[in-house]
């Protein structure tokens, strides 16, 4: 493993995109930053601007209004950027998959590097997903 990819893995900055979410996944993502799970141990922090982000967390079902916004956010990010789809809605569409306004799961809009299923996924599951993501590249 080279120096560059080592530094990249040790300092992943997260940007959180919530689609038409029921807010359960949002709360579970925030749980990862609390004292009990504390992802800052691995150098992960939430950043305010997509230009600084290394990981784009997408949760919630993506509807027709969300789709252009998600695409724009993805194009504004500085590459390399990893995309993680969180929750059943992000991965497949969940119970909204046959809805009128549904615009496809996340991986039909932008390339996705990791899926974390669950409704909502537990913080342990999110951490496990992040560990698999780090092992992948």
């Amino acid at each position, binding site marked *: 493993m080279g120096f560059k990819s080592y530094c990249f893995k*040790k300092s992943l900055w997260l940007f959180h995109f919530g689609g038409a979410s029921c807010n359960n996944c949002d709360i579970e993502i925030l749980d990862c930053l609390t004292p009990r799970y504390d992802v*800052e141990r691995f150098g992960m922090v939430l950043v*305010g601007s997509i230009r600084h982000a290394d990981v784009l967390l997408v949760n919630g079902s993506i509807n027709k209004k969300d789709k252009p916004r998600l695409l724009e956010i993805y194009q504004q990010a500085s590459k390399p950027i990893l995309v993680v789809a969180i929750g059943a809605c992000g991965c497949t569409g969940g119970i909204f998959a046959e809805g009128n306004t549904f615009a496809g799961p996340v991986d039909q809009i932008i390339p996705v590097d990791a899926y974390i299923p669950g409704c909502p996924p537990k913080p342990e599951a999110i951490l496990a997903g992040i560990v698999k993501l780090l092992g992948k590249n």
Partner: protein
Amino acid sequence: MGMQLFYFLIFPGFLFVAVAGAFLSWFDRKITARVQFRKGPPLFQPFYDFFKLLLVKETILPARGAKGLFMAAPIFAVFGVTLAGIFILLPMLNITTGFRGDLIVIFYLLTIPSLTYVLGALASGNPLAAVGASREMKLIMSYELTFLLVLAGVIIKSGQSIDLQQVIRIQQEGTPFIGSISGVLLFIVAIFCLQAKLAMVPFDMPEAETEISDGIFIEYSGTPYAMIKLSKYMLLFVLPSLIIAILMNGSRLEGIHILYAILKLLAIVLLLTLVRNTNPRVKIKQAIRFFFVWMNLLAIIAIVLAIFGL
């Protein structure tokens, strides 16, 4: 010539200030984590962040904006901090810099980083960055006068000396300035000025993360953002060193005094971090009133006390 280059680039110049500042930044984040009952990042986290931004991430230039100024502003910020660091650290190591009035020069050099952040933010053409830049400008206008009053108090206490080496020598021969009433008042005012200069939480409205999503730095990515991070790390070392030099006896490079200097530095950063972690962000109006009325009043009281020798 070789010696001067060594001073500027290695010790106590660019490299030393950057590495020490990075470790202080880790200290700041670790203390923050401990205050919140978390474990905190590993020791080399600031280095990982810096090298990731420098080597891995793509640099995006604003489509409609002054690209040259946008790229040059962070580099000027690093220049400004490096020069200020050298002017502060050489007298602290008891090396004669060879000109009088360097306190005034240090004051101007320490303004450069904030000014360049404003320039870079306005060059990016982002509306949120413009909001951040206007707040940063107001903040600069409110704390610079107070900071100048602190320096004025120090100059009066040292018997009209505007030479940093002289100021340190007077303290080391007598008592440190913080050992008097006016010195304590000046120290309190200086801590709040530092908080505003470093844009730490009570005064972090230029880069309010939840409100205007990183404000002045919103458009920065890749290498220029790495330079901004570097200048932030360096400021976190240079500004507490200035407080140590003008109020807390400076430092001596012999035996146990090296340990004392490190402890003084850590104590000041600890104080800054604790203030940062126990306060909410104030509005820009409140910050201006805080500095213009209360901090200026405190600084003027300290100056009057200093004139009467207290």
